[in-house]
């Protein structure tokens, strides 16, 4: 219930490297053509050795057609040596943290641009608790996954603390990964 206010786009001075006009254009286009909004994100993962697995991310589907990243991105995942592993990359759960942090951070930049807030630095620090008695099958009452995720943002920007808190809140509201980790998702795993 705020008094009406419209941001006049020509008055926007902030430059966070986000093309908000393109995003707003896409929003308008996909409102009119909702079929184009149906995306499919894909990954393929191959076992290397031990707990080391290599994921390749290249193609995806969107705007009604096949799309591709500029190149094939390779993500190595493994476990640290205290797990008797070779530590060839972050653990899969750390990729989850990376996904959450980068999604929220991208959201902060976008929302800040839209609200004409110049960012100077944004840093997220994440910590997620996990009781290994879950994945090791020691205690059936303990879940496998995180018992919680704590994200702390340090944001330096031309804005009041309250506006920065609002930026961070709005980025959560619009974040895909925040939704994925806070809400259930049906997962089907099949064998060919």
């Amino acid at each position, binding site marked *: *219930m705020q008094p009406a206010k419209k941001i006049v786009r020509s008055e926007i001075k902030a430059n966070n490297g986000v093309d908000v006009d393109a995003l707003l254009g896409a929003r308008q286009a996909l409102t009119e053509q909702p079929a184009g909004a149906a995306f499919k994100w894909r990954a393929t993962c191959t076992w290397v050795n031990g707990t080391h697995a290599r994921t390749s991310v290249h193609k995806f589907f969107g705007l009604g057609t096949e799309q591709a990243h500029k190149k094939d991105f390779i993500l190595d995942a493994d476990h640290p040596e205290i797990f008797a592993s070779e530590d060839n990359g972050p653990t899969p759960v750390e990729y989850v943290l990376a996904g959450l942090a980068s999604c929220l951070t991208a959201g902060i930049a976008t929302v800040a641009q839209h609200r004409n807030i110049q960012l100077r630095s944004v840093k997220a620090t994440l910590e997620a608790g996990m009781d290994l008695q879950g994945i090791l099958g020691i205690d059936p009452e303990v879940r496998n996954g995180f018992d919680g995720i704590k994200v702390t943002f340090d944001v330096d920007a031309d804005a009041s603390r309250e506006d920065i808190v609002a930026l961070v809140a709005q980025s*959560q509201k619009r974040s895909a990964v925040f939704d994925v980790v806070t809400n259930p998702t049906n997962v089907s795993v099949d064998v060919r």
Partner: protein
Amino acid sequence: MSSDSQRRATPTPAAVRTVDAIVVGAGHAGLAMSHALSGHGIDHVVIERGEVASAWRERWDSLRLLTPNWQTRLPSYAHESHDPDGFMTRHEVVAFLDHYARRISAPVSTGTEVFAASREGDGYRLTTSRGRFQCRALVLASGAHALPHVPGAAAALPASVASVTAHDYRRPERLDARHVLVVGASATGVQLAHELLRAGRQVTLSVGEHVRMPRHYRGLDIQRWLHAAGVLDQRYDQVDDIVRARHVPSPQLAGTAAPGLLDLNALRDLGARIAGRLVGVADGKVHFSGALRNHCVMADLKLNRLLDALDRWALEHGCPAPLEPERFAPTQVDASPPLALDLGKERIDAVLWATGSRPDFGFLRVPCFDRQGRLRHDGGVVDAPGLYALGLPFLRRRKSTFIHGAEDDVRDLSVHLARFLDRVSGASRAVGAVGEPLMGPAAR
């Protein structure tokens, strides 16, 4: 398509009553429109499935208006109260609207259910439980809250758990439950959670996006502020994102002069357990979102932004409030709110769905809906000739769903409607159509 003069010359079958305009719904909006149509000399009938103000006859017992008596008025009609700062009970609202209907001699056809409305000739044909009607202009005023909205997850509840909507709920004694899961934290959800807690029930409240608002601020009712600062008069074409504005949940208010907020903190203090948005029911368990903290942070931020705006407005307009500005304590959120509850283990006997409501346009066989099934309209002028809507959220103004909000909307839309009739029927409308009511006023 026959011209109007031909239609008039040819006697219509006795079973079809022809009027210039039909208003569906004899609540405050439909009656206010009837008053305006009479003022324009437009021959019309108000079709009502039950009695005048039927929605108000079918709600929970303790329900009161969220707007104080001083604000509760309709065109040419104000509440004559010795208590301008009080809040009408739902029975008083029924009496208020009954009296209004008689006072304006509204041509209401009560006990008339509309089965279907479709394009016919140059207007609309209505099939009802009391015969067929033909009109050139049709006004949808059957309310924004005709049907309760219940999430699909409700279907997965075990049979042992009662599933009750806020439309069906009446009072705690009628709800055979010791532990109730109330889903939704808009005005309805927090009011019902509060009432159940006061009646000694255990309550778990599932909370998604919500609007936190104090009943009083700086010694004045919040409606005084919103009214004076012009917030309620904001027009639909002045806001940044009207789709979002139309979906803002109702604020956490109750029609009571009791001090303090009816917010999550107050409900926690009374013993409620607060969980996130309900996201699913499976195998006898309800699952909640882990985003509760952010929903509470957003509600706190929006509350403070509103209070900042009101303080700024008071300063700029030299309007001293009795008390100094204040800020309310942030919403308390547990470190680990529940993500899943076993209905059996928790002994949850009933789920009370306060998850919003929808208008009921099921009878409307006119292509005027968008992909989401929402009515396509521009400030109440529906995307079909001579079709209008009233009383929907932010229809033309933020106050469009309030009783006092009907006056401005009805003025605008009745002028539009009168011009429409003039255009389609030329001078013929004037023939024998000087506000002669088709049926008698709603005498009781």
